[in-house]
């Protein structure tokens, strides 16, 4: 394989691995975020970044399909609210009972996993 092409393939695989990691975490992050407060898509992007100290910076391309999937699974309940006259109604998302249960399940699995990974990485001191 040509050197430049190999480099491109490696970069593409790295990007793919990172997006796989993000995708796995995004569902839990959205459920956890919406458990704190109901919010709409536009505010969620900055809200999530702020709540995670810029640890989870997402775009519309990741947010809306994830919200759609969660809504389809019955974990989120949308509500349209017309807040500003002359502007489009905002679609606010809230957790359903099923969503709260799912959050508890995922959280119970995530915390020991994250702690274990932290230990594996050397307690955060290993660069």
């Amino acid at each position, binding site marked *: 394989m040509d050197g430049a092409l190999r480099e491109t393939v490696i970069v593409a695989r790295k990007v793919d691995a990172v997006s796989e990691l993000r995708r796995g975490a995004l569902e839990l992050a959205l459920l956890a975020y919406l458990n704190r407060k109901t919010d709409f898509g536009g505010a969620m992007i900055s809200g999530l970044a702020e709540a995670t100290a810029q640890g989870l910076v997402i775009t519309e391309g990741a947010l809306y399909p994830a919200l759609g999937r969660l809504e389809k699974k019955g974990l989120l309940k949308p509500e349209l609210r017309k807040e500003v006259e002359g502007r489009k109604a*905002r679609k606010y998302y809230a957790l359903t009972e099923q969503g709260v249960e799912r959050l508890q399940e995922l959280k119970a699995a995530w915390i020991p996993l994250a702690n274990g990974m932290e230990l594996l990485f050397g307690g955060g001191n290993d660069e």
Partner: protein
Amino acid sequence: MMSDLESYLKQVRKGMRFVSGFNKTSFCNELTAQAEYTGTLPSGDGKALGRAMRQVYGISIFFRILLIVTAFPLGLLSTPMIVAWFPGFPATLFLLLALLWVLLAAYYGGRWSGLFTGLAAAIPRLVALVGFTFALDFINQYFDSYQVSEGVLGAVVLTSIMLPIIGFLAGGRIRRPD
């Protein structure tokens, strides 16, 4: 910004081709509300976002039915025994078209659309096969003793079974959006 937003939403709508009008409008309104709130355009490729949303919403019932209904005549016309009535009829070409139709259904509608469109193409082929077997004596009264080899019969059965399987498997191969 409004004209930029309009062209962005146009791309989103393009990506959401075959999704129901209600879902398209509802999602575009959501994006407009976001743009009004942030004062900026949504980032990223609008068409890619639309395609990702199509995978969430799925295509509309109207298009699902259209795909299934159209597969019936394609399946029927792809039956090789049709040459008994219409010599030189390009049945293989119609088989290829039926296969492409099933793949199209799988691509846009996912595995269940692929499966049902495949079934819709396969059923008339199998019905035609059975019908032809019973009608063979009648046909041979008018045509020059038309014969079908065991190989052709086997190929009809096999390709008919393959169509829904291909549709189902191809639909499952579509990646989820990032």
